[in-house]
């Protein structure tokens, strides 16, 4: 991306706040997402949710849905307890972004987007735990945020991005390849800018920036490598972009794997096939959570036999 385009984009991102109003709870929520779940105070979460009437309402609706036993939950507090902090915070983030992006600008099918993001968050975290990466919560957040650039592109370049998605689906190839051709930049770059704009840590910003190509940064950190790998894993296990991609991935031969293994030798002994089955196992839950938050618009997810 050349300097001119970069500064144009930057100006657009700065304007994003006025294009759409970020809910007041977004910033405190991002702070909260960085903490391990046992350090989050229930009261703090309840307070956050209660700020925003529409979000509080949706929380209650979800807690009372059949998925969670159709309890008769009437207070935000009991709703949060019923749902569990883990689920509540990713749900909150999803609801927030739903408010940030006006309905008519959702180029990406929201349920496909959230399945992929939530799936990636979970898998990045599980993988981080498996290799004993010290901050699995950060890994979760990186996974959750990694494709935010899609939302930026939806808002700022709605029609062109729609075209990108159409072409990518038609040719069964990754979106970033088409973005590069049509827009001249990718969601990796716009996502990076948004994360910078929000004041997120450099490590997170870098992970978002190079999640499709870890060779972009000379010293791609473990976080970037983890996100890169779990993005690939999600895409081969029905948690992709919502269309069929043509791909074959030799993860063990991937540069991110090679980089990661140097710092975390535990990766050498990771049973990738078993890990893949674990993803499949977790998928039902991811799909159910996303569907209950964003409505069950179904996307073909063939049953795994």
């Amino acid at each position, binding site marked *: 991306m050349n300097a001119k385009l970069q500064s144009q984009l930057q100006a657009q991102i700065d304007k994003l706040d006025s294009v759409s109003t970020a809910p007041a709870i977004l910033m405190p929520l991002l702070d909260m997402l960085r903490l391990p779940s046992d350090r989050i105070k229930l009261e703090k979460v309840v307070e956050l949710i209660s700020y925003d009437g529409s979000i509080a309402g949706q929380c209650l609706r979800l807690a009372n849905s059949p998925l969670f036993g159709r309890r008769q939950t009437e207070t935000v507090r009991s709703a949060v307890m019923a749902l569990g902090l883990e689920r509540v915070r990713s749900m909150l983030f999803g609801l927030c972004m739903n408010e940030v992006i006006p309905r008519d600008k959702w180029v990406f099918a929201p349920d496909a987007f959230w399945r992929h993001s939530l799936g990636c968050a979970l898998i990045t975290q599980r993988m981080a735990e498996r290799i004993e990466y010290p901050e699995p919560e950060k890994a979760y957040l990186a996974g959750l945020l990694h494709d935010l650039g899609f939302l930026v592109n939806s808002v700022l370049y709605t029609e062109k991005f729609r075209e990108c998605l159409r072409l990518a689906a038609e040719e069964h190839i990754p979106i970033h390849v088409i973005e590069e051709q049509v827009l001249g930049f990718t969601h990796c770059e716009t996502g990076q800018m948004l994360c910078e704009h929000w004041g997120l840590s450099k490590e997170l910003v870098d992970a978002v920036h190079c999640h499709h190509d870890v060779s972009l940064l000379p010293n791609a950190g473990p976080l970037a490598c983890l996100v890169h790998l779990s993005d690939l894993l999600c895409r081969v296990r029905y948690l992709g972009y919502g269309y069929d991609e043509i*791909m074959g*991935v030799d*993860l063990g031969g991937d540069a991110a794997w090679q980089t990661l293994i140097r710092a975390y030798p535990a990766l050498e002994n990771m049973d990738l*096939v*078993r890990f893949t089955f674990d993803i499949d196992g*977790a998928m039902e839950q991811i799909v159910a959570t996303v569907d209950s938050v964003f409505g069950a618009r179904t996307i073909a997810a063939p049953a795994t036999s």
Partner: protein
Amino acid sequence: MPIEIARAKPLVTPDSNPGDPAFLKIRDLIYRISGIYHSEEKLYLLSSRCARRMAALRVTSPAEYFEHLTMRGNRDVELRLLLNEITIGETYMFRHPCQLDALRNVILPQILQVKGLISLKRLRFWCAGCSTGEEPHTLAMFLLEEKDKLLAGWTFDILATDLNDNSLEAARAGIYGEYALRSTSDAMRRKYFKDVGDKKLQANDLLKAPIHFDRINLRDDSKMLFQKGIDIIFCCNVLIYFDLASKRRVVQHFYSNLLPGGYLFMGSAESLFQVDDSFRLVHFPGTTAYWKATPAQAGGGKK
């Protein structure tokens, strides 16, 4: 192998709560022995399979059943019986569509490109442990459908082998009922089968032509050494009964049976982790395969 699961009420009601830690031990045992894995969320499946065996043995606690599987005198027999429950009669046509997608979209184009330059335009497939023939017949339909498209100008043959003579006989006859055909479209049925009455269809000559059936015991080293020049091997739900050492042996044979650049497919829940490290694991949408890298390709990932 259409086996209906008898839904008779067990005499004793065993405690098969999937949360019981003994099931985690059984899960890991089954995985170590057969390569079949049950994720946390699928433990209930395992526990219900165990429940049937527990009822037959009149064992009530999972912990006690685990002992049967590990310590008692006839643990090998019991393991086998449990494995039979786990892999119960599931074979039918088009059972693994993701494998066929991977073939069509990635694997065959890759192989055709490399082979097209250097050798006869011929592909060899091998279904090892083909049972009653659903798998090779599916593969034959898939390849015949691609004959004028992807495979224009190419010839192919399918070697389909099993140890069990009865199964092979049924496979050669190629007569199937609704169970085996449940995922086969009407168009495919019309094109590749003939009605032989009694609600059964028989593979027609067009479908049978590319398949050659033979009896091969995968433990028979001399026969295994003999198979050469294969492009793709399917060995699904067969090695689950093998112990580690013999599994290793068979997989090493497969490795040398394959041409460089060839692929091995296993059942959808099977793994070669710690069984073999010559093959490279490759993920495709919805499925995985094992790849014999060509010396030139061995360097890095392919996307």
